[in-house]
């Protein structure tokens, strides 16, 4: 594989709160390669967004605190970069698409002005006319109909799906190297989601950016991701290519997540939920944070005493799992994902 475009190592971020220290992410490491879609999947509170927000300098400090780690982008550690430098990078070489386009667009400026601003800020010397021409091109690229007319409308005149398109247009305005999409379809209806998935694919073809797709939606991951990082309680618990993650996961949490899903194309007698509740990030269980909910742990002592390290599995290439007993899971029947989509 080529050199990673972004490399995160041992990132650990904590938040000070009245109730205690929240360990939002702990020792998170992963690489992002040019042109790939890296999915980061996890449930609420798993820390899936925090690592990227930290890299971009978007977590408030305090209460947030980077305890250790580095994030190397084009030879530069972004965690040590001054605020001004991060402003330059954000919306330039690294751009973002957020979940809620209503709150991330400014209501008092037209859509066109906001996209043009993104262009002008990052391209000193660009003429306004040129910026407007490029803005129209971008809106057409993301499938905003009648771009000529809609470019002068305000965000409230756009529907949810159209706003998300405008956000994507803004994000790719400066040909980013990295595009971070944080729950890009969560606020949208399913028929609109399908449209936005197509737009994201088109945006990637256009810019060849590496995409970090942060989501709780395994369907979106199945649809778009090349590789997948699975997070639980602030740690990476498994990382592999998307087919491996769905077809032969090697972490009890990933397996549990797959089996708890209701499926569209198959009848299931019962869903198989993960028992228990996610842990509090203030008082994580000792050892493996997943052990109180794990059906494979079966009370084994090591699960309660030792934090499992993320390790590669013999004979499985780049597949890494943070389970003491990952090898035992090999023979298990992984119900969901093992079928080829034929279903019932």
């Amino acid at each position: 594989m080529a050199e990673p475009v972004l490399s995160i190592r041992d990132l650990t971020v904590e938040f000070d709160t009245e109730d205690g220290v929240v360990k939002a992410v702990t020792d998170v490491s992963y690489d992002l390669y040019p042109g790939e879609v890296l999915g980061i999947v996890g449930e609420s509170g798993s820390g899936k967004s925090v690592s990227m927000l930290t890299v971009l300098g978007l977590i408030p400090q305090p209460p947030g605190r980077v305890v250790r780690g580095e994030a190397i982008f084009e030879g530069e550690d972004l965690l040590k970069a001054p605020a001004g430098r991060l402003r330059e990078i954000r919306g330039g070489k690294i751009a973002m698409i957020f979940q809620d386009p209503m709150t991330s667009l400014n209501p008092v400026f037209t859509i066109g002005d906001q996209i043009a601003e993104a262009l002008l800020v990052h391209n000193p010397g660009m003429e306004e006319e040129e910026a407007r021409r490029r803005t129209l091109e971008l809106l057409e690229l993301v499938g905003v109909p009648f771009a000529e007319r809609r470019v002068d409308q305000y965000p409230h005149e756009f529907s949810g799906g159209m706003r998300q398109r405008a956000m994507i247009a803004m994000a790719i305005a400066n040909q980013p190297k990295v595009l971070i999409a944080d729950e890009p379809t969560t606020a949208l209806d399913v028929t609109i989601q399908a449209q936005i998935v197509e737009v994201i694919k088109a945006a990637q073809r256009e810019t060849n950016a590496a995409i970090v797709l942060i989501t709780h939606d395994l369907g979106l991951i199945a649809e778009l991701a090349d590789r997948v990082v699975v997070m639980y309680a602030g740690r990476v618990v498994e990382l592999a290519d998307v087919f491996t993650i769905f077809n032969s996961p090697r972490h009890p949490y990933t397996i549990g997540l797959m089996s708890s899903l209701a499926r569209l194309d198959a009848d299931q007698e019962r869903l198989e939920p993960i028992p228990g509740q996610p842990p509090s990030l203030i008082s994580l269980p000792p050892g493996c944070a997943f052990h109180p909910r794990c059906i494979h742990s079966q009370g084994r002592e090591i699960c309660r005493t030792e934090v499992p390290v993320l390790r590669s599995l013999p004979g499985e290439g780049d597949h890494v799992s943070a389970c003491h007993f990952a090898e035992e899971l090999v023979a298990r029947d992984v119900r969901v994902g093992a079928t080829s989509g034929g279903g019932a």
Partner: protein
Amino acid sequence: MTEAPQAASVAQAETPSDEILRVEGLVKHFPIKAGVFKRTVGWVRAVDGVDLSVKTGETFGIVGESGCGKTTLGRTIIKLIEPTAGRIIFEGRDITNLKRKEMRPVRRDIQIVFQDPYASLNPRMTVREIVGEPLHVHGLSKGAERRRRVEELLRTVGLSPEHANRFPHEFSGGQRQRIGVARALALNPRLIVLDEPVSALDVSIQAQVVNLLDELQQQFGLTYLFIAHDLSVVRHVSDRVGVMYLGKLVEVGTREEIYRTPMHPYTQALLSAVPIDSPNQRGKRERIVLQGDVPSPANPPSGCRFRTRCWKAQEICAEEDPALVPRAGGAHPVACHFAEVMDPLRLAEAAAAQRAAAQATSQATS
């Protein structure tokens, strides 16, 4: 459109014995107010003529996108919102025009669970008070007896009696939803309207709540009206399903009929748009990507409401609102002039299989 239709006159209904709920021509229009004097300048036609029949003991799923009127439908059925027109018949009795006081005994039998377990539980009340409140309101039990009943309810939904003295903020989302369910169960209802009961929850917790609802249904013989936007969850829980678009049901059928042989173009598009379950299915599903957005329910299109986004639309679709009746040899009702069976989940596979078969026969004959 300046005036909403008036509620239909009351008459005792005749219902088949296994029918617990029947809704006829249900309409709910909300006024749009504007100006200094808050004059009504239009109507949002949230629910615009819905007929449905729910059998005792079944789960009837209502699925649709935001703004289709599914939540208003649920709330109107239990009369949290007064209907504009139409009839609601519960266990053979027309409850459409019952006064507040007359509704009270009926409310014992019909309960609702809301989507957001963070907003629907009073943060200043203990779990004991929340779950026991329906018993208090209906004057059903007191003191030690109520205590026992609340603890029993908590155990029923998988919480422990020690939780009774805590406040909602001490619980996670899934646990709060269990509290909401315990409260709904307090009066031994016959019908529970579940309005997006799992959409605010994480996937691993969703499955817990779905299974709990399933167990309770079997244990207490409950009937569910399950309202949700998640097509996979609705498939899992429902015996029959109604698909809603812009205030109307466009297709109603058994789970099999809706998911295997959908006939309405909207149902087909909706199913095809759901993300695949596994990357192995990449490229195997034909995706119908609908153009544009849902029109405003304040000004719905003439004739068929889906026609502005429909690839099959012809002149007749603008002129005539298609009735919800069985069509094109199908057994289940569908509101489309050009209804035909298509299985969007298997379309591409079927086509590939057909091609392979054709190739095989041509090779065999040559």
